């Protein structure tokens, strides 16, 4: 259960938002909308714990995320604008290493299976710098699938994906939510997800 209480954010000289409140339960989805520069990325980073809010707090299972530390980090998965893909490593290596770092080591076969699900089989041994932007985004998605996180925090996850990949992402997100996971997604596009509880958070000024 994720809660945000009286959240405020200031970037440089600008006040991006204040007095933001929301709650997210298991199986729930929050879509964050707003024009560029309205603070979507800042909000997501605050929820991750990477940035501290100017006011207010975020609570996970009734406890402030600052005091939870690693316990909270283990429960979330974050996909940022950047793909967090190392150019010199192959797709397979990238995935194995990121899951190993997150504490869930996967075997070669399991990693291969996930890459197949995101339609990257056949490319798994190429150095990632040879992959297209869409393929790298799919690699970021693969990382998401491989994680055992409850809360998915996604920033423009559909960017640079082709239609097939967008369809795949929708499917993955729905599956995740149906299995009791939660997601907060910042997006420009309509997600059109058929899920139980969905909220919309609009950060337009």
């Amino acid at each position, binding site marked *: 259960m994720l809660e945000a209480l009286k959240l405020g954010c200031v970037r440089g000289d600008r006040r991006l938002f204040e007095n933001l409140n929301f709650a997210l339960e298991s199986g729930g989805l929050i879509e964050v909308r707003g024009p560029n520069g309205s603070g979507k990325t800042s909000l997501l980073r605050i929820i991750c714990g990477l*940035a501290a809010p100017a006011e207010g707090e975020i609570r996970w299972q009734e406890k402030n995320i600052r005091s939870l530390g690693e316990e909270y980090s283990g429960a979330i998965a974050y996909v940022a*604008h*950047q793909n967090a893909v190392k150019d*010199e490593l192959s797709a397979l290596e990238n995935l194995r*290493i990121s899951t190993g770092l997150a504490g869930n080591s996967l075997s070669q076969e399991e990693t291969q299976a996930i890459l197949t699900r995101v339609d990257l089989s056949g490319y798994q041994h190429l150095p990632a710098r040879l992959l297209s932007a869409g393929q790298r985004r799919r690699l970021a998605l693969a990382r998401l699938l491989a994680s055992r996180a409850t809360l998915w925090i996604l920033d423009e996850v559909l960017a640079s994906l082709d239609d097939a990949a967008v369809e795949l992402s929708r499917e993955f997100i729905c599956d995740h939510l149906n299995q009791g996971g939660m997601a907060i997604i910042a997006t420009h596009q309509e997600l059109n997800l058929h899920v139980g509880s969905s909220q919309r958070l609009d950060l337009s000024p």
Partner: protein
Amino acid sequence: MFWWLVWRDLILAWRRRADVLATLFFFVIVVSLFPLGIGPEAQLLRTIAPGIVWVAALLASMLSLGRIFGNDYQDGTLEQILLTPQPIYLLVLAKVLAHWLVSEVPLVAIAPLLGVQFGLSQNTLGTIAVSLLLGTPVLSLIGSIGAALTLGLRAANVLIALLVLPLCIPALIFGAGAVEASVDGTNSQPWLLLLAATLIVSLVFAPWATSAALKISVE
């Protein structure tokens, strides 16, 4: 997870060997410049050798420090590393260890060979190796603080040098002092012990400062 990070950094360094070798060659060139600038008189070279080898090692290390966190910061991997359920202190140690193995150990290995250019005795060459072996981790540890503070800034490399070099002065004094003692024929042990003490203090405190700096820079 600690070893995954070390392993990852080692693989990445191997695939970008050119960067690593460039630092090594810089070290070699700088050390060789001094006799060219000062003159080949044997006694003089023997006196200045400890200082030169050490200062060159410091400067070469400054070149490589930008890479500890720089690449990861650029492609978004650093954030992911910070979001793993591991104390950041350990992750910093992992990265510093990898940096030391890749950028500093080659210096330690090649320095005795360079010492031959200065006409130093076997004993002194050994002391050079030991002093650098103890001292280069200190450079990596303190350097990581500078690297973390200057993430994403323009001219980060020069700024790192400006911030880190004064803090490395004790290591320089103790390390070069040890080699000098060896050249003079006196006991270099007290110097090496002081250097070891500096290493232990850095090992305990520096990663903590670096993790604080990372959280500040990433925000």
